[in-house]
């Protein structure tokens, strides 16, 4: 099924929760600099990566995301000082959680990308897209 889909022009859906102050601005910079980033990414802007409740991630997978990317400020640079520490712990936790649920934790990725790192944003999304293509579509059992 997944092999077939891959050949039939399947494109992964990647939900990206990007912090307003760093990664979102970094994505913007990637755009104005005309860098090639993944077209499969759907960006959701949040005020801080710490705003991303674990239920958002589970729900996004359930609603059809094949991969989820969380982008926040570098450690020490969070606009709200500690939001991204919380993100770090949540994502570690969710990876264990997803694995127990039978979903490959590689479908969830966290990166610290600053406002000036448009190139890192572009490269990370392309790499993540490649990874999700290898994993194929995420399907749920009833």
């Amino acid at each position: 099924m997944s092999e077939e889909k891959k050949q039939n022009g399947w494109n992964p859906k990647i939900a990206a929760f990007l912090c307003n102050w760093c990664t979102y601005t970094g994505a913007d910079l990637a755009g104005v600099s005309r860098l090639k980033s993944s077209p499969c990414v759907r960006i959701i802007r949040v005020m801080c990566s710490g705003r991303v409740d674990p239920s958002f991630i589970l729900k996004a997978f359930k609603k059809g995301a094949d991969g989820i990317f969380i982008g926040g400020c570098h450690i020490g640079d969070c606009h709200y000082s500690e939001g991204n520490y919380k993100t770090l712990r949540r994502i570690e936790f969710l990876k264990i959680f997803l694995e127990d649920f039978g979903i490959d934790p590689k479908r969830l990725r966290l990166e610290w990308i600053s406002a000036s790192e448009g190139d890192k944003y572009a490269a990370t999304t392309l790499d993540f897209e490649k990874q999700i293509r290898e994993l194929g579509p995420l399907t749920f059992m009833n």
Partner: protein
Amino acid sequence: MKPKLALYWASSCGGCEIAVVDIEAKILDVADFFDIVFWPCIMDFKYKDVEAMPDGDITLTLFNGAIRTSENEYLAKLLRAKSKVMVAFGSCAYEGCIPALANFYDKKKIFECNYINSPSLQESSKNVFPQTHTQMPEGEIEIPEFWNTVKSLDQVVDVDYYVPGCPPQSTQIIAVVEAVIDILKNGKPLPPKGTILGAGEKTICEECTRERKEKKIKKFYRPQEIIPNPDECLLDQGIVCMGPATRSGCDALCIKANMGCRGCYGPPPNVLDQGAKMVSALSSVIDSTDPKEVRDIIKTIADPLGTFYRFSMAHSIFHRVQKMEEEEK
């Protein structure tokens, strides 16, 4: 004519039935006010009695138990059609509860465990699987079909109200019974559809009287590993307590017995997924910023999935454990 009441148990342990009887003398008010038309656990009724009723004939059905088999589903649909008000009573009907822990596996794995690998099976009965239809000299025997996934009641029929708890506390059942009698007797309006009855609007933590400090957890403990201080927050002491992710209503019963809340009242208002809420709550108290150490601390929680979704797996965002992706390949 008296209003008609039905109670049914689908895939459940029977505890909800006991909880109803546990309201003591109040049960007499129930028997007095209602005409009990169907309650197989207590009185001899047959399914055909219900099948013969006109649609909407039953005023109120309290349905406990999850949907595990075709029989559970048939009765859910039958009682839905015959009832004006359908209540998912207790954690199993509301959110799957213990039966839905089977959603960690599928029908194939469960059958293998029970009918091939179970150590109590005799050689001769190994590999004998239940069949829905069996021909015998006396005629055909039919038994219900076992579904792959356990569902909550509202995943198979329309549900009007929910009463959480494993089982619902008798004080809460009394409050619900009194409210229902008041509504029917005095023509009061019904609460909005989907209301959670017999519970609070907060979290267990807000009901809990233990002293809280800033939480800094380096290791989680199982209840048998330490003797908790009875006055301090259990989570502060490293015991997984579902208080932050559980709806109030039981008066923090387990915590008073020095045990962490296991989450039987389901998620609090505006929380979609009890497990995700616990991930969020515990991520705030883990005392580390090093990914490797964070991971090691999380690994000290025995079976996070089974613990956080002990009662709400069927109703969680994912409903069940998915097949391991490697297995598919």
